[in-house]
Structure formats: structure tokens, C-alpha cells
């Protein structure tokens, strides 16, 4: 259904929120104004009290295809995304095999095109993500890849990273880094500190992240180009990025909903559902991240949605894989982190949609062919990629009722505030009253 009238909602533009009705015809926004009269052939959605803005864009999703389909497929991940309000996902290259060639990138783009939303691909920076030889970034860029990362790991060797930044600069793409220095992380499984020591669990030092953040900022200054820092988790990392931006460097950053809402104390019960890289940090880091988010210093909230088959999380803490689900809970957690009733809707859609759309080059001005423009201004003429969020509802996470094939959410049974109700993707209604269409 691509003839839709939205009534009663607050339309959230980049500058403010205004109460108005919005009409989509043949998938394109055609009219915006107060009290529009419904037409006969359109579906009327009464979204009183809800916010309507551009569909969310996740800069950081792990769809496990190819190679890990038991945990998630491109199709199931897309469904999870829709329920979470996402009309675009950037999928990470740490599949098996890694997405480091045209053939594999094409495969994922083709599978993604069969879903109701837009699936963009982040290609690997180095071959097989081994951090040694550069991957064919120019060829992949020609297919529309705009972000490159070895995520799962960071590029450990400074020389390799410098070369990657130089090489990729003329391509107009952005290199994204998972900042964790392996030598400072060792076999650690949670945040390094007194809690880890008393639990007898190896620590992943915050230094591991901060040293790489500093290194890459310094490299960027020397080579030029564009840098995006994935899942920053410490106060000092944010401080370094804020300073780098003030200097005029093209560096962007994201934080995850879990780093905004949980700290290392969650690991005290040794439940591997809370095991993630970078790890949940101290409560002071969580506060610093929230302040930075509210202060507009964070470009995007990104989920780092990491599905894992259930039996893998039924292991001892240090044997279980790291990573947790995020797509279906991100919006509510972001709303919570921005202060709930104090949450500014403009900032909300900025970090969930407009910001990541800019980082990923998915806007109308720079979107590659084959993908639908994201992060729109809500203006007449735009293809409708819209998400409605009801800030007034409360709900509880049911781990057995997720769209994802996996169920490794750390938020099972948790009370959540605010919920995505409606999603229009590529002009079609794909989610209504919380139900997939």
C-alpha cells in the first residue's frame, strides 16, 4: 500500500516538530498540511501523539549471511530492523567469507534488494579482514559501497591504516574503525577494572580503545579523508573526537544503545548475554556518553546488532561469543538515554536517522543507485521512508517473540519506554501498529 495519509502526528523536521498531516501517493510525499481530507483510495493512519520522522538508519548491523545463517539472515535481519523502525541497514563485512570482493558485495546487495528496506554494505578495508593487504575498495565503491571497515576487529597496524586512508581518500568513501588494540585487550572479556578482578575475568582496557582513537585521529590529520569511529564506549574517546571535530577533521562517531543504558555491573552474574566488544564500561562512562549524546556530539546511535545462535551463549562467560541484539530495542533505549519526556524529537531523529544517513552517504544528495534515499527533510517530492514513534507507550521485551532468528537480547523482560509503531519503506507501508505488513 503506497497511498497513505498520516494524521494527528508531530512531523519532525531537521529544525523542529510541527503538528501536521502528511500524504504519501505512489510512495512519494505529496502533501503536508493541517487537517488534510482523506481520499478514497488511501489508507489513513491516525497517529495522535506520535512522532513521525525519517526512517531510522543503522550504521552497524551484523547480518550473518553468508556463513552464519543459523543466527540471522538478510531477510530476518531486515524484519527485525523494520520492527525497530529501520528503513536502512548498513551490514558489516565480517561474514564467512568476509565481504572483501565485488562478488560477495554484489551477493549481499542483491539479497538486500529483495527485502522491503534498503540494505547497504560496508566492505572490508583489508583482505579477509586480516589487517595486512588492502581490499579492492575502488571496485567495491563502484558498486555503491560508501563505508569500509574491518569491524569485528580494528586495523591493528598503523602503517596499514595510514595507507588505507590515503588510498581511499579520492574515492569519497569513509573508513570506519572498531577501536580496540589487540595487545591491550589480550583475552579479556569485560571492562578492565576492580569488578573484573574480583570476578576473576580478564579485562579489556579502555586504553585499548582510546589509544586507537587517538592514533586514527592523528593519522587522519596527516592523510586527510573521512573517518568514522564505531561503538565508542569511554568518556575519553568522546573527548578526543570532540576535540578532533573542533579542529575541523572529518571524523564522525557512533555509540550503541547498550553502552548508553548498561554498565559493567551487568556482568557480575557471569551471564554471557552481557558480553560484548567493546565491553560495557563504568557508570561514569555511561554518563559521559549520555551527556555527549544530549549535547549533540554523537553523530549516530548504531546498534551493533550481533545475533548468535542460542547454544553459543549457553557456555561459560569467557567461552561464549561477544555480541548482543539491538535492532528491535534501539529506538526505545535511545529515547530513554535522551531523557524520555525530556527527549527532543529533533535530536532523536538526528541520531537515529539524519546523522547516520549523512555518515553512510544515503541521503538524497549522495545515495547510491539501487538504494532509497534516507534521512529526509520530510518535504514534498521525497520517496517516503518514514518511521513513527509513540513516546507514550510502555512495553516489555519478550525474548521469545523477536523477529530476529536469534534471541540473545540482554533486555529480556525489561520495561521499555516508547515504541516504534509504523514504518513506511520505499513508499510502502511495512509496519503498522507494531505488526509487519
Amino acid at each position, binding site marked *: 500500500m503506497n497511498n497513505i495519509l498520516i494524521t494527528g502526528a508531530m512531523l519532525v523536521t531537521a529544525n523542529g516538530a510541527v503538528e501536521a498531516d502528511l500524504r504519501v501517493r505512489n510512495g512519494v510525499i505529496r502533501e503536508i498540511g493541517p487537517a488534510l481530507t482523506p481520499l478514497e483510495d488511501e489508507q489513513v493512519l491516525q497517529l495522535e501523539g506520535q512522532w513521525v520522522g525519517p526512517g531510522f538508519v543503522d550504521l552497524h548491523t551484523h547480518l550473518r549471511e553468508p556463513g552464519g545463517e543459523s543466527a540471522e539472515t538478510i531477510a530476518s535481519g531486515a524484519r527485525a530492523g523494520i520492527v525497530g523502525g529501520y528503513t536502512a541497514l548498513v551490514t558489516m563485512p565480517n561474514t564467512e567469507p568476509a565481504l572483501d570482493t565485488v562478488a560477495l558485495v554484489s551477493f549481499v546487495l542483491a539479497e538486500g534488494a529483495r527485502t522491503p528496506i534498503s540494505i547497504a554494505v560496508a566492505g572490508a578495508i583489508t583482505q579477509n579482514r586480516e589487517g595486512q593487504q588492502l581490499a579492492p575498495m575502488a571496485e567495491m565503491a563502484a558498486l555503491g559501497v560508501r563505508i569500509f571497515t574491518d569491524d569485528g576487529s580494528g586495523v591493528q597496524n598503523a602503517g596499514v591504516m595510514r595507507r588505507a586512508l590515503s588510498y581511499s581518500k579520492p574515492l569519497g568513501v569513509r573508513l570506519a574503525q572498531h577501536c580496540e588494540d589487540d595487545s591491550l585487550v589480550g583475552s579479556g572479556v569485560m571492562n578492565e*577494572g*576492580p569488578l573484573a*578482578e*574480583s*570476578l*576473576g*575475568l580478564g579485562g579489556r582496557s579502555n586504553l585499548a580503545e582510546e589509544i586507537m582513537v587517538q592514533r586514527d585521529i592523528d593519522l587522519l590529520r596527516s592523510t586527510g579523508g573521512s573517518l568514522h569511529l564505531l561503538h565508542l564506549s569511554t568518556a575519553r574517546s568522546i573527548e578526543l573526537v570532540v576535540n578532533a571535530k573542533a579542529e575541523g577533521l572529518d571524523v564522525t562517531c557512533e555509540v550503541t544503545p547498550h553502552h548508553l543504558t548498561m554498565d559493567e555491573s551487568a556482568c557480575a*552474574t*557471569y*551471564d554471557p548475554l552481557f558480553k560484548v566488544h567493546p565491553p560495557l564500561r563504568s557508570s561514569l562512562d555511561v554518563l559521559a556518553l549520555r551527556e555527549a549524546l544530549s549535547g549533540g556530539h554523537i553523530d549516530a546511535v548504531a546498534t551493533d546488532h550481533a545475533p548468535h545462535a542460542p*547454544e553459543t551463549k*549457553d*557456555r*561459560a*562467560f*569467557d*567461552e561464549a561469543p561477544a555480541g548482543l541484539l539491538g535492532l528491535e530495542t534501539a529506538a526505545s533505549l535511545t529515547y530513554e538515554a535522551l531523557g524520555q519526556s525530556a527527549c527532543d524529537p529533533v535530536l532523536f531523529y538526528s541520531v537515529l536517522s539524519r546523522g547516520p544517513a549523512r555518515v553512510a552517504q544515503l541521503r538524497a544528495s549522495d545515495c547510491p543507485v539501487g538504494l532509497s534515499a534516507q534521512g529526509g527533510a520530510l518535504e514534498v517530492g521525497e520517496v517516503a521512508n518514514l518511521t513513527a514513534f509513540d513516546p507514550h507507550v510502555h512495553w516489555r521485551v519478550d525474548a521469545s517473540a523477536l523477529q530476529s532468528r536469534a534471541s540473545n537480547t540482554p533486555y529480556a523482560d525489561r520495561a521499555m519506554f516508547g515504541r516504534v509503531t509504523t514504518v513506511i519503506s520505499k513508499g510502502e507501508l511495512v509496519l503498522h501498529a507494531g505488526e509487519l505488513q
Partner: protein
Amino acid sequence: MIETIRGQNLLSLNDLSKEAIIEILNEAESFVEVNERAIKKVPALKGRVVASLFFEESTRTRLSFETAAKRLSADVLSLAVASSSVKKGESLRDTIATVDALGIDAVVLRHASSGAAEQVSRYVPHVRVINAGDGQHQHPTQGLLDAFTIRQTLAERKGVDPIASGASLFEGLKVLIVGDIRHSRVARSDIAAYTSLGAEVRVAGPPTLLPQSLAEWGATFAPNFEEALRWADVVGLLRLQRERGTGSFVPTLDEYTSTYGLTQERARLLKPEALIMHPGPMNRGVEVDSKVADGPQAIIRRQVSNGVPVRMAVLYLSIAGLGGAK
């Protein structure tokens, strides 16, 4: 903080109050006597089934626990999982469920991963879980038998009844723990026990082998090893795993011995009545000189023989402690 392990799991000595620890030490005294009889067996756990599940091999500890269970007349299911077909990474939950399906009252668990005992206790809440060592986290019965051995030895020396002494023999007792505290579950359990009982604990060792958060453990760092040896009433030596002495934490084993080994020269600095302890197995010549380990101040053999009575006390209180409640 639990006040008694009757009917409870024993996962970490950080969970136990001073009273809970003393209760175990007192009960263990009765079991010392049982172990001295000709027939070393009492029917206290008759009809109960204790599974011993060792994912990490340790013949000594496993035999000690199994002997303790058998001397309480329990039936013992012995599963040395480390040598079975269970691969690392196989679901811990599945392995436990298989054992539980056989109908068990308690499981004694040793695992290479910290927190495994706590995770298992969540999978089978109706079964009593006794932690026999989980990764680098805790080895509660070792801490208990070390405390028991200290009290037993000091009570004998002073001619007092150990049970009547309660925790008084620990008050102000100066205990020095030496070695790889950072990676040691024995150290964590010992420090928890000794500080609970009122002792003053200091630690010594190379900086790379010490934790950063000593203050939160109730212990302090002794920067001068020789001075600390002169200060101590009890010296607890930790085993230095050979892997740690290959250059990443400590340059060589020789360097460890020359800086922190209890050599004969260093042993001469000790007070004449000071006690030397080691949880075993010893690396003779590395953390302790062979002659010193066999010398009159060392009570290492006592530690070993106290293992069975202390474990009997733990099994008895944990499994039978509350009566019918299952």
C-alpha cells in the same frame, strides 16, 4: 552475605560471613576425628548422590572431594569431563542437564572459566553446587582448609580448643601472600577468608602479577619483600605457573625466584614461629626452596590432610544442612 552454608551452594568465600566460615571450621573438627578412626565413614549422606564434574583436570582435588563424599556414605558419580569426549565450547547447560537427569543432590564443579559454578547453579537451582575452582575466580574449599589449618596449628601451640577459640586466633594475625595473586583463585579465596576472620593481609609479588584493586579486597601491598617476611606470622606461597614465567608477565622463572622466591636465605628472615603454607602442587626451586618446603615451619602436609575433613564439613552442611528442604 550468607550467614550459614546449610542448604546453600558454596560458590565464593566473598559470599560468606565470618559466622558461616567458623561454622564450617567447627564442623570440620568433628570430621578430623572421623578421619582418624579405623572405619572412616559415617552414614550422614547415605542415599545422596554427589556428582564430581571436573572440566579442568586435578587428580588431587577431585580425589579429596570424592573421598569426602564417600566417607559421608554418599554415592559418587565421577565425571572427569576434561578427558571425556566433551569438547571445549560444548554447551555447559547441556552437560549439566545430562548429569542432572541421573538424579543428583549435589555437584562438585571445577572449570577453567571464572563464574562457571555460578552459571551452573542457575541451570540447576535444585542441586547444591560446590565450587571446586572456577577459572581465576575462587577456590572456596582451599581457602577454608587453609584457614582451618592455621587455626588448628595455632590452637595446638597455645594449648587451646580450636572450637572454643572461634575466630580469636585470627584477630590481628599477620598473613603475607606471595606470588601470582592476579591470576590466582586460591589467593582470592584465602584473602576473603583471612580478612573475614580478622587477619591483616599483605601481598607481595611482581607488579605484573598483582591486581590493581587490592584495597577493595581488604589487603595491602608490601613493597619491601624482606621486610614483609620479617613482619609475617604466616606466609602463604602461591604456585607460579610455568607459562607465566616465559617473558610476558615475568621475564624468567629464575628472575622470579631471585626476587620473590622463598629461598633458604629469605626463610631465615622469618619469625621463628612463623608458618609457611602452599596450596600445592609446589614448583620446588621456583617459589620455594625444597629444603624450606620440607622444613619445620612448613605446614603444607597438614593442609593436604585437612582437605578431606573440611570438604566433608562443606558437603554435610550444604547437602544435609537444612533437612527436608529440597
